[in-house]
């Protein structure tokens, strides 16, 4: 169980980014984090993973991983948790890979380092996971450089790395930003649900109302670094309390009823 208690994050010059945030990620449960842009969702994930920017201070509160405070641990210990215990799907897939190495080299490297596999096993695992995320053209993808692939493909590769590592806690930062509807529906949701069934805790940052409704059991809503609403997903969508949440739910209902009209440009 990962528990965030009264977490506060400031920049070095004193601007508040997150204030008094508490939430719990339990195994087998998917917790959604939503809120307007700039509300501190990514800052929260970075703080949990210990990869905050240099000018950011995590100065209050506790992050408890199985009852031991992560903030009290050394940087090396926290980094060793990353990848094996805490997995991360980055927001922008285009910049998530080192352009100097092939996808295959980077995937195999990660599996070799984190799972202790030999070279051959790591390659096999990379190929297996690539197939799982609907990239059947495995050999080409494996040998490609990141700038030869599209954002959607790279995003699925980040998911493939995560599936291979199979961490206990999955932090997905807008994992659908570059995916088309088909891939989003069938593969991302399917794979995240499989992780959930494998008793991983999934923390999903997203603006995507469909994704949140389908996957999440609990949702917290952030605005301006404050937690403004929390509760079960169906409760939030049926009975939103906060102004921003109400608007978000109204808009998502609009789309469902089909009254959302796209003006096609001539």
């Amino acid at each position, binding site marked *: 169980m990962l528990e965030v208690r009264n977490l506060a994050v400031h920049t*070095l010059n004193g601007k508040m980014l997150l204030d008094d945030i508490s939430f719990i990620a339990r195994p087998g449960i998917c917790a959604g984090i939503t809120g307007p842009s700039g509300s501190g969702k990514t800052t929260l994930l*970075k703080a949990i*993973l210990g*990869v905050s920017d*240099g*000018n950011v201070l995590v100065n209050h509160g506790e992050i408890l991983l199985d009852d031991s405070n992560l903030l009290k641990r050394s940087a*090396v210990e926290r*980094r*060793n*948790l*990353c*990848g*094996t215990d*805490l*997995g*991360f799907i*980055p927001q*922008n897939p285009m*910049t*998530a*890979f*080192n*352009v*100097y*190495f092939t996808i295959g080299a980077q995937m195999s490297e*990660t599996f070799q*380092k*984190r799972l202790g596999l030999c070279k051959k096993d790591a390659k096999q695992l990379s190929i297996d996971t690539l197939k799982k995320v609907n990239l059947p053209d495995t050999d080409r993808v494996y040998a490609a450089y990141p700038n030869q692939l599209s954002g959607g493909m790279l995003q699925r590769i*980040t998911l493939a*790395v995560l599936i291979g*590592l199979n961490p206990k806690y999955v932090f997905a930062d807008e994992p659908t930003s570059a995916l088309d509807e088909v891939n989003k529906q069938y593969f991302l949701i399917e794979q995240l649900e499989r992780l959930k069934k494998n008793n991983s805790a999934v923390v999903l940052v997203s603006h995507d109302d469909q994704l949140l409704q389908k996957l999440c059991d609990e949702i917290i809503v952030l605005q301006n670094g404050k937690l403004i609403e929390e509760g079960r997903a169906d409760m939030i969508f049926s009975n939103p309390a906060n102004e921003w949440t109400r608007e978000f739910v109204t808009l998502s209902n609009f789309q469902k009823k089909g009254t959302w009209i796209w003006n096609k440009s001539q």
Partner: protein
Amino acid sequence: MKKLKFVIPILVVVFCSLGFMLAPNNPYAMDAAHKFASFSADYPFGTDQYGRCEFSRILYGGQVTLGIVVVGAAIVLLIGTVIGLFLGRMSTGKSLLFNSLLDAVTAIPPLAYLIIFVGIWGNSIPTMLVALTVSLILRMIKLSKTQTEIELGKAYVLCAISSGASKMRILFVHVLPNMIRSLIHFLCLSCAEMIMSISAFSFIGLNLGDDVIDWGSMLQESRTVYSVRSSLLYFPILFIFICTLAFNLIARQMEGGEENA
């Protein structure tokens, strides 16, 4: 074709630095009977006013000049890059101090360093090497530090950390290959600059010591006999020109490759 553009300059540099092994004559052997000999099989470039083989002297001069350049460049690349990598990783507070220090020290032009060191220790090969290395290494540190900071800000580093890569691994396996191109580009341009500095300094008399052959001092000596044999002046100039050009071409290839990557 693209490879050829890269290989030819490198071959030129290798030939100029290791060519002394092929020298047909002893570059120091004076022979009063063969003063100002013209081109022949024994003396491909003729002889100078003391009857010394011009071709052998050019090749030995290349060894000295390019030897200093290559050793200096290797030291600059190794030490400069590593220090730059570590400085680039530092927190903002600490790096402010180093930033101001580097800015202050690099504000002095490289030639000024040369004059300072030659003034203190007199002229010799080690002095020249130290003077050139010191002025370039500071620039190298600055460049590699800035590049490291840029690379560390990129998202793939964050992703590498979040999949558990260690600090050293990120610096040397992920960041270094991404910036090595621009570092080598800079280094090649500095090499061209170094050849010019070494030659210019020995030409104006701050040579690398008595009995040391280098292209600058050859120029200086043949200047006085220009009216008798002008080719003695042209050969060192030609070789300085070719080597400088070669380094510039390598640098250009590095730059062009980056656009294609």
